[in-house]
């Protein structure tokens, strides 16, 4: 991440740390409710999810507003999603389980919702690892391929969120709708691009048919032209 002196960028960088500060204050003043361990753990997970959604929001935002140069904000938000996800995982391992690995092992093995959380975290971890510019340069085309897995991470994250609940779906529904809109935008773009590509670069048999058609139309045009010429000729003849 190249740091430029940019007021808005620095401001965003700072603002993204406020949820952590807020959480630390709540922890310090014992304001996390009757189950502070779970509250800490869940709030970190919530913020990771929110930052992941914000990361996914940058591209549509650029498209709609025609603003340029938001890629570095997308990178920053993605790194924050990873940052809060890491704290979420650490809180689970350390604060909640105090590194009691035998209990952790069984907990992960038996809890399907954790599998999806783990999948999401592994993806985000590898994206964060390959986030620096030199990694992007070295990886070439593969970089984009790898970073498309953010969509899978987002789907895994929402499943992780849903499956640990007992039934109340109001808040998760909000996140699900947001994700549907964010992913829906990608599907729309992909679909449009595909149609566009179809029109621009015909291939295989279609190309053959296309040229055939074109030739036919050229021939008919020629014929028409000839006919027109002959008419002209006849007209000319009449004039003569």
């Amino acid at each position, binding site marked *: 991440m190249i740091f430029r002196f940019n007021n808005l960028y620095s401001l965003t960088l700072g603002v993204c740390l406020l949820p952590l500060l807020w959480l630390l204050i709540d922890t310090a003043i014992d304001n996390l409710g*009757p189950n502070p361990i779970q509250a800490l753990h869940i709030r970190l997970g919530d913020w990771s999810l929110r930052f992941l959604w914000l990361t996914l929001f940058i591209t549509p935002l650029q498209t709609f507003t025609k603003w340029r140069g938001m890629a570095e904000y997308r990178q920053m938000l993605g790194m924050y999603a990873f940052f809060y996800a890491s704290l979420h995982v650490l809180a689970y391992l350390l604060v909640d389980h105090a590194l009691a690995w035998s209990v952790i092992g069984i907990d992960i093995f038996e809890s399907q919702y954790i599998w999806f959380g783990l999948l999401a975290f592994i993806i985000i971890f590898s994206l964060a690892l390959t986030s620096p510019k030199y990694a992007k340069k070295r990886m070439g085309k593969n970089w984009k391929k790898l970073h498309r897995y953010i969509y899978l991470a987002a789907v895994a994250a929402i499943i992780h969120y849903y499956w640990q609940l007992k039934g109340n779906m*109001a808040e998760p529904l909000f996140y699900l709708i947001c994700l549907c809109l964010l992913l829906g935008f990608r599907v729309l773009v992909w679909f449009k691009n595909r149609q566009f590509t179809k029109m621009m670069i015909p291939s295989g048999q279609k190309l053959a048919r296309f040229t055939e058609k074109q030739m036919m139309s050229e021939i008919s045009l020629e014929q028409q032209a000839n006919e027109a010429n002959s008419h002209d000729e006849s007209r000319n003849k009449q004039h003569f």
Partner: protein
Amino acid sequence: MIIKTKKVIPASEITDPSIFKARRQIIKASLAAMLSSGGIASVFANSTPPIWPNLPKSPVTNGTLTVTPAEIAKNHTNYYEFSFNKTDSTRLAQNLVTDPWSVEISGEVEKPGHYHLEDILAKQTLQEYVYRHRCVEAWSMVVPWVGFPLASLLARVNPLSTAQFVKFTAVYQPQTMPKQFANAMLEWPYVEGLRIDEAMHPLTLLAVGMYGEHLPKQNGAPLRLVVPWKYGFKSIKAIVKIELLKKAPMTTWTKFAPNDYGFYANVNPNVAHPRWSQYSERQLGSRFFTPRRKTELFNGYGNEVASLYSGMDLRHFF
């Protein structure tokens, strides 16, 4: 039914004879206090001195448990009639009208009828029962309940031999219960059930208080069930109806998600919920960096209740 208990009662837990002799006075005093504290006063129940400061401890009570701080137990309730949020229920539940309160007992009994709560309590000896409370969400606490065995209430209405199950119905009060009013999520009113031998077991309680005080409204006032070897959702709050039935009743959570919440719902670390493990539990009140407690089969009450399920596949009857 003979229930053998291997526990030797420590001398410290044997009731002081003076307290025992004064039990009628204690009950009368507590009833008077209960009646006078109805209505608005009970909202401030948290600040009043304990009504039952030195209640005799029940012989089934395990004296080695560390009781969860009252403030935690009072502000961490799953009371979906009020809110899906465990702390919001505390405030919202104060609107519940609990006075007067009567319980309808019907079905396979000789003496069905509507019984006023005061009349029920007048014939019962209240004791303190310190029990583990394990939620299906994998958190737990230790609560000193004030109550009496359900069996001694059922004995007064003479169940018929045809009574195989007990169905409990909670209050339907949509004008004070927002989620009932909105018809949200579960089917209201809340219904729970026990097999008759589970209901008659001496560990199974009807509670009217905790921490030496009346039950706070968010904790199920004025009358709730406590079945310590089952997940918390079995211990239905604000009971208005007890029916003795020939067949097993359909219970609220089982109807909502039959694969997730069974009729028995015995605490069992070896049978995971379809989406999460039940192997360990977070004890409320523990500090950061404290490992979770390993959940025990039947929540640690195996000596007392395992015989109820001998020969049953607990994975199938979850």
